[in-house]
């Protein structure tokens, strides 16, 4: 499953579990994306191999991806980090609750990658206790339609939820980013935007380009 899908689904999980604090919802959402943090190894490898994608893929990405971050060890690590970062206002039980939700979000990420990560990318459920891989031959690859549909629904759902509820997974990028998205989808016009309507068009253009940038490498083509 794509990174944005993991982030949005994890935020939705935190929201539907009833978390009231913006900070805690963002912590759970990032915890749900955290297992894909091993992409940093690929970025490092690209720099190391002077942008040779083949070498970086073969020597690092193929070996590292899913191995250390898609298992029980990383789930527990996520919980500890979430406990340390959770908003202290709610006290110890509340912080423990956030840590539990963060661990569950990380576990859900593992399951989503088992079902929608492709058969060639197993997860390692009990790592570091066991290096036994776990994958399914019927698992959807990253560019297959179920994953594309989930991504589209996540993006459209984000916009719809921002309009109806006045908050969205953009909270993960800060309160200002969330207020901006809510303002855009509700067509609210702050005083400074009335004079510069071009800014809104530039932002929508950037959003469309970002969507294309996510979908194009996956081989997605419009059916026309």
């Amino acid at each position, binding site marked *: 499953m794509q990174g944005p899908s993991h982030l949005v689904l994890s935020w939705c999980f935190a929201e539907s579990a009833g978390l009231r604090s913006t900070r805690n919802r963002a912590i759970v959402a990032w915890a749900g994306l955290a297992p894909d943090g091993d992409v940093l190894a690929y970025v490092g490898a690209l720099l190391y191999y002077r942008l040779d994608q083949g070498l970086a893929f073969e020597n690092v990405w193929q070996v590292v991806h899913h191995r250390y971050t898609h298992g029980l060890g990383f789930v527990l690590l996520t919980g500890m980090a979430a406990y340390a970062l959770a908003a202290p206002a709610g006290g110890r039980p509340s912080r423990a609750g956030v840590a539990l939700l963060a661990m569950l979000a990380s576990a859900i990420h593992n399951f989503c990658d*088992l*079902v929608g990560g492709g058969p060639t990318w197993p997860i390692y459920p009990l790592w570091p206790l066991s290096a036994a891989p*776990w994958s399914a031959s019927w698992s959807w690859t990253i560019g297959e339609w179920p994953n594309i549909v989930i991504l589209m629904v996540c993006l459209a759902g984000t916009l719809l939820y921002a309009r109806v509820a006045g908050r969205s997974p953009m909270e993960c990028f800060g309160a200002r980013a969330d207020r901006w998205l809510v303002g855009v989808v509700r067509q609210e016009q702050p005083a400074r935007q009335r004079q510069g309507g071009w800014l809104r068009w530039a932002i929508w253009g950037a959003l469309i380009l970002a969507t294309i940038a996510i979908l194009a490498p996956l081989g997605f083509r419009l059916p026309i």
Partner: protein
Amino acid sequence: MHSRLGIYARGALWGSVAAICALTFAWPFLVSDHAEQPAFKLAAISTLLVFFLAMLVLLAARATEKD
């Protein structure tokens, strides 16, 4: 939202999360490490659908709540 629907949705959410943990961390070691089995495929995809549906219902309720 109808309160009974909310209770069912909450139950379905936590039930599906428990199933997700079991299918991810316990199934390959306690049941079978052959994920090609139709039973596992059926259980995995239906669990994912229940999880999405329960979340959808609860989000619909939360969206209309006053924080």
